[in-house]
């Protein structure tokens, strides 16, 4: 496309210029793909702990979910006659988060069905990446929780005569609810307790979560608000029932709370946009998780709480529209 033009008697090839609107400079390091990659990197401590505690089962479960999520996304986008967008890694992230939230013992059909529902109903039906209201991984998991209650109930975690010692016991939260032995805090921190694949180690969740917040790929206000909410309700419960062994610290470190607060509630698409909104969202998340744990039949409340606060996010956005610096735009009459 270059033409030659004479300039001062010399022949130079004219550069091909174009016009475009401002701004003409961009922060190049930031892409959606980079954010997804950060989430995957942040999940490696959890994956490592899962393999350490649950051995081969972790690899199989997460592997099935990731493969099915990617395949579903490819299939659904082809059906909708859109270009396949698997390269943006969002399906992989959904697959890993979903896989890590399942019990080790759930059969391959649980992984496959939850993945197909997560991508198909949690994401594609709404319009794909960026358009979903609810967290896709939790939509998938909620579906199989109700469809296969035994596989995902308390019994789905325990195998009394397994060679893997940790799965012969109930999960810490189930044990606390049914009056069994209280798991020691260090075990909740390190992760050699029973539970969903990714939730067992509080230390891994904190490590990965901190990385994510420092990289600004997750908003720190959400986990911060969640911890405040949980500690508030858990603290009150602790004071009222001080004879019970399961303290607020156990609630903080045990179960899927940290996993949910750092990795699931922080999904940007389904959470509010403003700083104030994120604090409120996190706070409600922490409070409702505790309420479900204390007052409902379920030992753990993270997945339903996530779906609940996802539904509240548009309302929270509306409540927390920030006022511009300099005040609101003056109405014509009031000028």
């Amino acid at each position, binding site marked *: 496309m*270059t033409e030659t033009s004479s*300039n001062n008697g010399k022949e*130079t*090839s*004219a*550069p*091909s*210029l*174009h*016009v*475009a*609107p*401002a*701004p*003409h*400079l*961009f*922060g190049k390091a*930031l*892409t*959606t793909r*980079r*954010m997804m990659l950060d989430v995957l990197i942040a999940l490696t401590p959890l994956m490592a702990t899962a393999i350490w505690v649950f051995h081969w089962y972790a690899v199989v479960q997460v592997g099935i979910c990731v493969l099915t999520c990617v395949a579903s996304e490819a299939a659904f986008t082809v059906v909708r006659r859109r270009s396949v*967008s698997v390269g*943006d890694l969002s399906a992989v992230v959904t697959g890993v988060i979903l896989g890590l939230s399942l019990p080790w013992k759930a059969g391959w059909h649980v992984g496959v069905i939850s993945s197909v529902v997560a991508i198909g109903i949690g994401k594609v039906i709404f319009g*794909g*990446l*960026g*358009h979903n209201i609810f967290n896709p991984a939790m939509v998938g998991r909620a579906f199989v929780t109700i469809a296969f209650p035994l596989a995902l109930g308390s019994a789905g975690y325990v195998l009394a005569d397994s060679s893997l010692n940790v799965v012969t016991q109930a999960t810490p939260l189930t044990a606390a609810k049914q009056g069994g032995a209280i798991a020691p805090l260090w075990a909740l921190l390190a992760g050699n307790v029973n539970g969903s694949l990714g939730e067992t180690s509080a230390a891994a969740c904190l490590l990965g979560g901190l990385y994510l917040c420092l990289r*600004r*790929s997750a*908003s720190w206000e959400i986990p911060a608000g969640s911890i405040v909410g949980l500690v508030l309700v858990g603290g009150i419960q602790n004071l009222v029932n001080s004879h019970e062994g399961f303290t607020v610290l156990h609630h903080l470190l045990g179960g899927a709370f940290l996993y949910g607060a750092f990795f699931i509630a922080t999904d*940007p*698409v389904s*959470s509010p*946009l*403003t*700083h104030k909104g*994120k604090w409120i969202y996190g706070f409600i998340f922490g409070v409702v998780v505790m309420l479900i744990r204390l007052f409902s039949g379920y030992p753990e409340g993270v997945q339903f709480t996530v779906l609940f606060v996802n539904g509240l996010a548009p309302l929270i*956005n509306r409540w927390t*529209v*920030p*006022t*511009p*610096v*300099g*005040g*609101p*735009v*003056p*109405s*014509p009459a009031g*000028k």
Partner: protein
Amino acid sequence: MSSIATKTSGRTGRAGRTGQRTFARGVHPPGHKGPAADASIEVMPPPGELAIPLLQHLGAPCEAVVKPKQEVAAGEMLGKATSFISAPVHSPIAGAAQRASVATLPNGRHVKTIPVKAAGEQLSGRALWNDVLGGEWPADLDQYDAERILQAVQEAGIVGQGGAAFPTHVKLTLNENKPIDTIVVNGCECEPYLTADYRLMLEAPQPIIVGSRLAARAVRAKRIVVAIEDNKPLAIDAMRLAAGKSNVEVVPLKTKYPMGGERQTILASLGRKVPTGGLPLDVGVVVLNVGTAAAVARAVVRGKALTHRVVTVSGAGIVKPKNLLVPVGITYSELIDHCGGLTPDAARVLAGGPMMGFALGVMKTPVTKGTSGVTVLTHADVARAAETACVRCGRCVDVCPLGLVPTKIALASKHKDWDLARRYHIQACVECGCCAYACPSAIPLVQLMRTGKAELPRE
């Protein structure tokens, strides 16, 4: 070796507290001041022909007062102001006026121009420099009263040199209901690549100081503050030296984009918030660019009109980046040729800086009083991935200096949902470009907000 620090030097003491030397949010694009920062201002040789646009300012266009073939002297008025918010235009060279023509300015407007063909002796080189910026400047300004200053500024056709080109005499007119207590002289130059204001502060600080003091006399302001970003330590020193014992204070501000936007400059240097939809005079402030201040000095002390200005020609796509003292009405192509021409990989020629500048489609466009620079970017500079869906990550909210939610406004604009756009304060947007700079999904946020504002139905 660049003389401008590329990182904040931290010598501002209380840098970082909102309202004291900085403002919340904003972005930190790389400064790219290196190429032109050390190039001292070169006087452009007078061209054979100029085309002076009759609209170079915000406000009403001028009416021509010369006829074709009429002889004009350097500095003679070519077009007179037609309303209060308007400014006359003058010829930078001596010669003969031609028949009126039309030109398209970088912002897309078609304006009438008066071409002038050079004839006779022209000031050039050192002599021109001394006439515009050099020479002696008086320290005692008591002989100039407010009326005289205002009249000189209006007759000289002075408009804001920072880019908005608002007629300066309107800013300096006393308003009984809104008294002014501070003049802020804006030497921030937050746009990457531009160094015209920096070099002006280094090489001609005296007219800037004199002009600021004259402007303060005109509006009876007690305080004069020169705001300079802290990546220009040499300019801070030069201005402090030139200010001497006068009441002009030099205040270094944290280097951040858009520190040079007047709302942010006022917030950072004085801690005052200009009301949305309002002007600096609502908080008792008048903001003047350093170039405007120098032009005010020339107009009042020497009785000369605004005909020349300093322009930076920079960017990776220009062979030899320079700072030039140019006459208004010279074409962009002459500036580019004077700087060695475009490199083979040049992709976009911008009037202004890369954050808010307009891309030029035609190089034979005339430079106006508001042109601060020409930035030429290469294909590598502007390469961007394709636009993807908004994932509501909130980066745009994190960086908007006005505290808006750009993604929601852009969404409302795309779907023409004007209630939603108003609820998110679309009219408060100043189109600085921070949101689009930070967006990981390459969404053209500024363009969507601009079209939204344009299509917003009147209430």
